[in-house]
């Protein structure tokens, strides 16, 4: 118990340190401007905050639409028990994305201009609008947790009625903005290295979001089962592992086909600054997880599955950072490395994510397993048979 206590204290100390450093950087950011806080400059107008906080943040929050889609649209009922934590992750992911944006935008106080000065040609406009609407959708998907906590039966019934619509809308919006994050880069073909610039970029961004949505769900279920000491739904994550295996193969084959089609496959094996990064990306995102997941033993072992999903996540994070930064370094002629303060703000945002997840799990019925929920619901009279399965 004492060991447990010490452990908890360590994480708390770390959290406090990260927050203090992050708040200092926040102070610098809003008092002295972007130049003082970051290593971004006219040659590298986009840095870590766009590359990681935005591109990766949105990708890692993709579990929300994958799992709700599987459960409510395709009626894969077995996945019910992980819907709530995935929606929570997605909701927090998008909220923190917006927080990240408030740091990155030069004039964050005009962020609402997005809603009144509309440029339909702009991919950025599309991404912004979809993210805005989807965050609202996620809020509505998440809100039953809060309502349930306070036994507000009326509104729950209302939300449940529109739940299928919300889920459909969520998938539609996610398809659009997950892929459009890739389209953002289509407008500068001249700047990017051939390894990463492909007309199929939106397609790959969408597929990698699905892979990461699955990997993130495995990662987070395993992690929270350890932290919160709750039983792990083995069969569920095994199934997700299988799905991840298939999705990774699809992406890998399409990547190969894309490289063949654009005739850059020979360069991949030539050592160069870019190819080192590409190798790192491909190893983490494909070689390791595909090798591991091909064994049934791995797919049924939660520890190994955890490692495989972690590798996938790191791989696709590397991929997005490569797209956003590495691919442009040769064009620009020098390297970009985020500054200490830039990193500290990113760390602060991540720490906030863990903190909020923890709080939500403590105070809201996130991990109510299906049986418990099935019993609870009639007790608070949400009644009606087809509905009871909706918001578990």
């Amino acid at each position, binding site marked *: 118990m004492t060991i447990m206590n010490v452990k908890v204290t360590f994480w708390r100390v770390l959290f406090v340190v990260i927050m203090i450093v992050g708040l200092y950087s926040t102070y610098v950011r809003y008092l002295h*401007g972007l130049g003082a806080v970051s290593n971004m400059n006219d040659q590298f107008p986009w840095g870590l905050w766009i590359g990681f906080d935005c591109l990766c943040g949105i990708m890692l929050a993709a579990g929300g639409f994958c799992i709700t889609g599987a459960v409510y649209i395709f009626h894969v009922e077995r996945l019910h028990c992980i819907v709530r934590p995935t929606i929570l992750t997605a909701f927090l992911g998008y909220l923190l994305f917006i927080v990240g944006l408030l740091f990155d935008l030069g004039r964050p106080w005009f962020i609402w201009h997005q809603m009144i000065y509309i*440029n339909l*040609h*702009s991919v950025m406009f599309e991404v912004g609008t979809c993210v805005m609407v989807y965050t609202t959708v996620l809020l509505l998907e998440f809100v039953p947790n809060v309502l349930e906590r306070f036994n507000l039966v009326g509104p729950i019934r209302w939300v449940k009625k529109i739940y299928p619509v919300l889920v459909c809308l969520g998938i*539609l919006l996610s398809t659009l903005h997950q892929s459009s994050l890739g389209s953002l880069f289509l407008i500068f073909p*001249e700047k990017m290295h051939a390894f990463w610039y492909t007309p199929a970029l939106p397609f790959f961004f969408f597929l990698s979001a699905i892979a990461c949505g699955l990997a993130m769900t495995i990662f987070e279920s395993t992690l929270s089962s350890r932290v919160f000491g709750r039983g792990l739904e083995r069969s569920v994550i095994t199934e997700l592992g299988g799905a991840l295996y298939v999705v990774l193969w699809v992406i890998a084959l399409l990547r190969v086909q894309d490289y063949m089609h654009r005739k850059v496959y020979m360069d991949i094996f030539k050592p160069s600054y870019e190819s080192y990064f590409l190798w790192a990306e491909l190893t983490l995102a494909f070689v390791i997880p595909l090798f591991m997941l091909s064994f049934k033993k791995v797919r049924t072992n939660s520890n190994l599955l955890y490692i495989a999903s972690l590798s996938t996540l790191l791989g696709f994070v590397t991929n997005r950072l490569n797209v956003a930064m590495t691919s442009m370094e040769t064009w620009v002629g020098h390297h970009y490395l985020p500054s200490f303060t830039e990193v500290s703000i990113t760390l602060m945002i991540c720490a906030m994510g863990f903190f909020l997840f923890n709080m939500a799990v403590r105070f809201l019925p996130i991990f109510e397993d299906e049986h418990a929920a099935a019993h609870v619901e009639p007790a608070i009279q949400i009644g009606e048979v087809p509905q009871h399965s909706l918001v578990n």
Partner: protein
Amino acid sequence: MSKGILYDATLCIGCKQCESACAQQNELPYDEKVAAESVQTDHKFTTVLTKDDKFMRRLCQHCEHPACASACPVGAFHKTADGPVVYDVWKCIGCRYCMMACAFSQPKYEWGKLNPRVRKCIMCPDRVSAGKATACAEACPTGATKFGDHDALIAEAKDRIKQNPANYVDHIYGLNEVGGTSVLLLSAIPFEQFGLPKIDRVGDVALPEYTGRVMNLMPDFIPLWGLVLGGVYWVTNRRKEVEEVEAEEKAMRGGK
């Protein structure tokens, strides 16, 4: 009639009068220190580069299909009928997508400011709409920077190369690059030696087309994908309902 600028490096003497006039026109500081700076920044919209005895002027190309304008989520950039690509600071949210999108890296940012603006050459829109030449063209003592009707300038540039093929690289930079630009450049030595993007690298396709291809799919894609999702939901839901009813009936029959 759309206007343009023709800069002929072979006529340039590197006096930097255009830089100074530009600074004055845009109320930017200009002294010897600024004059010595060879990179464009938030306080230097145009710069005259020197390589041995050759010169090259860099400024916003004022593209016919500006990537910056297409990229901006709030439409802070637009190309006027006269030719200049101008910037409405009051719309800008500071996402810096314009800076990423521009193939010529022209938009620069006020990194040190708290309410930063994007800054670049805007081709003196007030002067141009009043029928005057840009400040830089007016200041140029040799006619290296020439302001005029876009079409006439193209014809003139072609003619100059034809008259003196030995003096020029056989290329009008900006005639076809990224779908054509209002600013045309002529030079005696390859343009990339001055940091301009390689001709084959930028290509002749208007950059907004690359994103446009995807964005144009949206009006078809959204209803279609929505319909598919709704359809799948309807089918699976129906199947579930039928199963439930069947199970119930079975149970009832079993009860009898």
